[in-house]
């Protein structure tokens, strides 16, 4: 039995169905069991329609499973109300999406501050410093004051990563974080994710279509038709 504190995410018999009770009822996920330990860097791959996005939404507490239990850092989530889910999400999970990650009304730095603002209600100097620190860590000190729309795609994804890390989450969920970028930018963004992972205890779950990037992860989970088809450690990624 693994150390409970070392477990970031645990899924037990997770099922997800849509249109429940209607003739069109369809089950997308058929009882998934999965454990991700602290500091793991995991790729989630699989063909379109295999249920990757659904799974990511469930893990991100944006959606609720039809059956099964989902633990985030050891805490069961099925009985939580919306307010508690929001709090847990804010504290434990960071998101990086493929498109439209940032609010165009705000600068890069302010976008990074937003999760702290939502949690604490009012901006302060400590927030600004923390955001500036992360902006520097993702190599964007020079453009921190620019409106987020004025940044390149790669820069925007870096800001999104900084925002995902600002609350020091246990788990970062990235949905095709490089899917929108050219190869060079994609490599840079991916390198950044790896570097952050190595420097912290944060676990990463990265959905990707790109086999090249998947090969650079420590563990590759393949989802096919709502079932885990394969789940294996990837020695190739190790330096």
């Amino acid at each position, binding site marked *: 039995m693994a150390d409970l504190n070392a477990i970031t995410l645990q899924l037990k018999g997770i099922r997800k169905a849509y249109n429940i009770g209607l003739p069109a009822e369809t089950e997308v996920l058929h009882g998934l069991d999965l454990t991700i330990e602290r500091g793991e860097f995991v790729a989630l791959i699989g063909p379109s329609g295999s249920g990757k996005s659904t799974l990511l939404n469930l893990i991100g507490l944006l959606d609720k499973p039809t059956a099964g239990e989902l633990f985030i850092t050891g805490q069961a989530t099925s009985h939580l109300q919306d307010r508690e889910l929001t709090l847990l999400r804010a504290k434990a999970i960071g*998101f990086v999406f493929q498109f439209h990650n940032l609010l165009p009304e705000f600068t890069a730095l302010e976008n990074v501050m937003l999760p702290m*603002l939502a949690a604490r209600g009012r901006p302060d100097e400590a927030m600004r410093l923390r955001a500036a620190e992360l902006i520097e860590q993702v190599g964007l000190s020079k453009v921190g004051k620019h409106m987020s729309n004025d940044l390149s795609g790669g820069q925007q994804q870096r800001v999104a990563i900084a925002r995902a890390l600002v609350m020091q989450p246990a788990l970062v969920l990235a949905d095709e974080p490089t899917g929108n970028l050219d190869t060079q930018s994609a490599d840079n963004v991916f390198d950044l994710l790896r570097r952050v992972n190595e420097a912290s205890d944060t676990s990463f779950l990265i959905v990707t279509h790109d086999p090249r990037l998947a090969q650079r992860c420590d563990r590759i989970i393949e989802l096919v038709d709502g079932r885990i088809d394969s789940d294996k450690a990837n020695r190739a990624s190790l330096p």
Partner: protein
Amino acid sequence: MNTVFPFEWILAIRFMREARMQTLLIMSGVALGVSVIVFISALISGLQTNLFRRTLDFQAQIVILPPKEVSRPLHKAGEGMLATLVQPRAQRLQSVDQWQTVLAQVAKMDGVSVVAPVVAGAGFIVRGEANKAVGLTGIEPETYLQLIALNSKIIAGTANITGTDILVGMDLAKDLGVWTGDKLNLQTASGGTATLSIRGIFDFGNSGMNSRSVYIALRTAQSLLDLAGGVTSVEVNLEAPFTAETVAQTIQAQTGLKVDSWIATNAQFFSALEAQSMSNTVIRFFVGLTAALGIASVLVVSVVQKSKAIGILRATGTSRQQILRLFLLQGALTGLIGSLLGAVVGWLFLNAWRKIAVNADGTQLFPITFDPMLFVYAAVGATLVGTLAALFPALQAARLDPAVAIRG
């Protein structure tokens, strides 16, 4: 980022600033609505104050009269026959019974500001070959001038009359070719006759009154009209004119005399005032409704436009309540800022109106009442309307499924 405002405010202000055109248009709409409300309200309340003042300038608020005389047919006893035709009695001039007691009694009542005895009757002014029928009013200037704004209508001489003084209207004076200091002969049907000297000329701005009313001293009127020691009415003003009807009924119950309030005798005037007030309310309601629908529709569109942003905010730890407040706040701010702009525009309208709506002599057609509280009410009202209008879009935004919103 400003550290003064909380999270929802920062977001609301940024969202509104970023959607510049939308914000500008809807705020102009609200501003226009508020300016119309401010303008119309000031106009109508000015109009009403003015009408009200004009009406009460020329009449007492309560008039106490002797009861009407009625004919009482006598039964023919025993034969079962009644008079089938009863001729109503012609009303002769008669005095208010015990008027000094009534006067003293009414003067002591709460809310009564002035009580004045009046002798009114009909007469002829004779000068040379001309004679004019006039209504003559006998007054005690010390009380009557507090009752009616006669002083302010005097254009020559003074209203303080005693003994054989008379006040005549401007038109009558012109018809008879007389002015202050000249003498006139006044005769009444009961045979009274007196030579009076003109002490003052008044102008009521109404040629009927200017050519047919004259004022003389109470005692002179009593003797001319054969009413020695009597008065035909006791007239009363109150501190609060709108309580006149209640006070009139109290006096009637206490004295048994006929008591008329200005509210009862000017029923038409009151229904006109009410109609104005009602049309003002209707205008306010529909302007408010239009503004609310405008704000709501802009926010509904905004929720759709911002659905991705809402999804991202929810994913990064923003609660449903915070999203709800974010949109309610946008509605409230639109209402508040729009109403402040509208107050300024309304104020400009009013000033322009003051310059345009003037008489030929440059005085105002009627003065506009300018209550600063109206601006406060408009601002509070518009903020409430904005918040209410935002309720539906805000709930929509708060209920948005973040997973769906992010995928778009």
